């Protein structure tokens, strides 16, 4: 992941629900109360680039950080709710990932990193393998003459997240170049 990675920056802009562990002066603007303080237990949606840091920094150095709470508690977002997890387990290929979140994998990985979430990793592994085979079918089967833009790509293609789109695009380019090469020879 790179500092200049456009998709990583966009993924980081997604908002995650957070609960504040402290009364914090001046931060009211985060929940639309400019000039006010934020109260302990206030639930606020924060972009991940901010939430991620506030969720690991906090406490009071004077007392010693042992057991000190971070500024905020990150709460599971809808995209990782049990409902979505069950949907993945029961039918990863029919799932509309794009509508759940267009940076689903990137965010899920960030989440797993933050919380050392082994179950999530298992689910992602399964989902990735199942869906990528379907992506490969599409990437390799589309025929040369059907390449005109705007053609119906099938409903599955509309359900891809950004990583999957990139995977599709690159695999498809490769298969297309190969077919072209074979036809020309």
């Amino acid at each position, binding site marked *: 992941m790179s*500092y200049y990675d456009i998709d990583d920056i966009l993924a980081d802009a997604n908002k995650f629900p957070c609960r504040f562990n402290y009364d914090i002066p001046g931060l009211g603007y985060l929940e639309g109360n400019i000039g006010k303080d934020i109260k302990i237990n206030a639930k606020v949606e924060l972009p991940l*680039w901010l939430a991620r*840091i506030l969720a690991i920094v906090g406490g009071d150095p004077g007392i010693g950080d042992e057991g000190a709470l971070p500024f905020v508690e990150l709460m599971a977002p809808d995209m990782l709710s049990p409902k979505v997890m069950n949907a993945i387990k029961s039918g990863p290929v029919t799932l509309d990932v794009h509508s759940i979140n267009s940076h689903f994998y990137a965010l899920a990985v960030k989440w797993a990193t933050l919380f050392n979430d082994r179950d999530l990793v298992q689910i992602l592994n399964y989902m990735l393998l199942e869906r990528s085979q379907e992506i490969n079918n599409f990437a390799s089967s589309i025929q040369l003459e059907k390449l005109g833009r705007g053609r119906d790509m099938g409903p599955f293609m509309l359900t891809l997240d950004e990583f999957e789109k990139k995977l599709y695009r690159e695999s498809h380019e490769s298969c297309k170049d190969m077919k072209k090469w074979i036809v020309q020879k």
Partner: protein
Amino acid sequence: MNIDIDDILADLDRDTTAIDSSINSHAANDTTILGSDGIDTDKFRHLPVLSAVGDFEKLMAHWRNERMSPELLPYPHLLMERTLRRVQEQLEHIECVSMGYLEDPSAENSTSESSNNALSNKLPLLCMEADLERLKFVLRSFLRCRLAKIDKYSLYLRQFNDEHVLLPLSELLSRQELEYHDRHSAIMLKLLNRAILRHMPPELQAVDDNDGSVKMVDEPEWNRFVFVYVNGPKAKQDSDPRLQVNEMGQQFYPVTIQELQEEAELTIGGIYVMRYNVVRDLILDDMVQLI
């Protein structure tokens, strides 16, 4: 043109195939030997013979590795020096030969049919042209690929001189590449400064700040997956102490995938998808080729 060194070299090459293995070992150190001069006629009889074709094969291997590796590999200084010199000589040679043809009145044509015939009569010349184009293509593609990586890791390479003592930047890059790196980073930084950084508070004006919430300097993706072919030692008699033999009698390199704490076997002749950092040393030693 006076004595044609390549002709003499080529003749020697035919008669002295026995020293081939010494060429290989010499070439393996290619990148770390600097400052040696081009071959001169008095000295070259004492040096191992480096044939154009042998060099081309090495160049192909460098090209393929460079194209597929996440990191910028060391510039093969001597190999490139020899190859560029040969390109220049061959250009002159071809010009010389084709001058001879131009003087030939039958070659003066502008209709396609007769120039077709004229070309057929010039088969060796045609072939030498094609040969040179092929060599130029590989050189061009190799260098363009390196420039792309120099750009990509521009800031990372800047820290190279102090951090990585193994290979200073001046050896990793050619003289021209060093200049390119300097000049391109300079104009790039100028752009970023003028467009953005100078409008930032002083503490946010750096482009190489790795202490923020996201590291600014990109390193090569060391554990990126690559396709590899395990060729093993070039000459059969050269054994590699790292090689082991499995129960099926096949020779293999035992490797460790650090991140997973997993062992794997790379059998000679096998094709694998492997993390780059696992096979890096074997690639640099020419025992494994990126494909």
